[in-house]
């Protein structure tokens, strides 16, 4: 599978990516079971186009898009790519600076990115620049809430039991 030497700097599949995309800027590390490469929003499209188009890599399948709220460090997006041809898996992390959660969209490369990005956008308030249909997917269309942010509270059971008054917006 991986015919490039694995090093401390480029573990596992990252070595292969570095070999075939030497210009790509990323920092590689290991997660519990995979390899994670970190890049920034400005270099994302370039990296992903390389990952998809190089026949030695051929990451043609976008498995998953994860939004993350890292609180003080800002929002983060993680992509999981898979290559059917070479049975490779890689995770790409894209941290965004606090207050500026803009990430370029991948919908022109992967059709399946459409709904995944809409979901991450509404759940975290991420903005996917260039998305063709940036509407709410799971929530009602006129809502502007981001439930998966750590700042968004859960309803208390006490409200349900009538012990406490509900906050505005949650009551009906």
């Amino acid at each position, binding site marked *: 599978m991986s015919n490039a030497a694995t090093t401390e700097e480029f573990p596992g599949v990252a070595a292969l990516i570095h070999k075939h995309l030497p210009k790509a800027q990323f920092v590689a590390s290991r997660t519990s079971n995979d390899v994670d490469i970190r890049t920034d929003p400005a270099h994302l499209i370039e990296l992903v186009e390389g990952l998809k188009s190089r026949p030695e890599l051929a990451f043609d399948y976008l*498995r998953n898009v994860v939004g993350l709220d890292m609180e003080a460090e800002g929002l983060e997006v993680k992509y999981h790519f898979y290559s059917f041809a070479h049975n490779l*898996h890689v995770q790409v992390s894209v941290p965004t600076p606090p207050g500026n959660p803009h990430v370029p969209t991948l919908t022109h490369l992967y059709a*399946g990115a459409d709904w995944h990005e809409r979901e991450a956008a509404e759940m975290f308030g991420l903005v996917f620049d260039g998305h063709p249909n940036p509407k709410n997917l799971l929530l009602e269309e006129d809502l502007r809430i981001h439930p998966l942010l750590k700042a968004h509270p859960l309803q208390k059971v006490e409200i349900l039991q009538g012990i406490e008054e509900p906050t505005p917006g949650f009551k009906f």
Partner: protein
Amino acid sequence: MSIWPEERVLPLERDGLNTVDMTINVGPQHPATHGVFRMVLTVDGEVVVDCEPYIGYLHRGLEKLTESADYRQAMGWWDRTDYLAGMCCEMAYCMAVEKMAGIEVPERAEYIRVMMAELSRINSHFMFLGAFGADVGSFGTSFIYAWRERERIYDFFEEVAGDRMFPTYFRPGGVQMDLPANCESRVRGLISSIRQGIEDFDGLLTGNEIFVERCQGLAPMTTERAINWGITGPILRATGLPWDVRKAEPYSVYDRLDFEIPTGKQGDIFDRYFVRLAEVYQSTRIVEQCLEQMPGGLVLNPDLPKTLRIDKGECYIRTEGTKGEYGVYAMARGGNKAYRMKLRSPSFSNLAALKEMVVGSYLADAIIILGSLDIVLGEVDK
């Protein structure tokens, strides 16, 4: 009579006839939407010219709630995602927690897990077969045939784990308790009745001329388009690509089991149906092998701490759910709760491609195309 909204009254010129497109709202309450899915179809006569899917009517905060509860408490929400096959979801969740915490699972527990997950898969596929027959219009008979086997499997689940649908039988580090004493003969009886059920479906639907005429050549999908949309599971395999997470990236003890990956050729509706029917048979083979190979010993890791705390961990677990790749992204940053858990549900990605398949078909076909995707709204909407 205001059937048509104002802006659509302008007639469109098509083939020399003045026609008006009509929008039809299907769902969220509709007998054929398999839950609370909604799509707005624009039809020109009987032909669908546009389709816009709306989801989220069952969005109930799985990921948010998981962040608020202990690792063991949160499992109850996860087996309610794919509520036709709760055990497959439990397996993915437990694997994510085990991977982050570095917990070993006893071998007997792995075999029990695989066996239960495969029985869940059979359960889910039978639900598809029954519901699909009803979508095509066989008046509930296929449903009843399917439910006969499903009830037997549910009875077995109840005997083993104490609940029919959501037993939360798996634990991080094994399974809750050992199998009952008469398990082997029960499972063998179950398998023979399931195989009888497959033959019944073969007789009821596969050999039916009208069914074949309705399904063959409808909404064909190429492998390239399917991959681009992120479609996995039986729909991808129906296009001819023998890709299954159980074979490609084996987890648990699947690498020790012998089974085949049924594939189709054109990726049409009939192939999807047939691939699922064949998968039921493969699952019965896996269950048989689990029974044969099952070692003795403990079923739960004895070294587990009382409260599971994970300082740091990040993983993306992928398993073969019943509808495709069921992935769990998990991240821990200390404490007894997950910092973030994200479900990559197969139905979500498969459903996104609905528009491409539906546009250009007949209205009646739109229903069975949706049925052939075999969506479960619990995992689409999370």
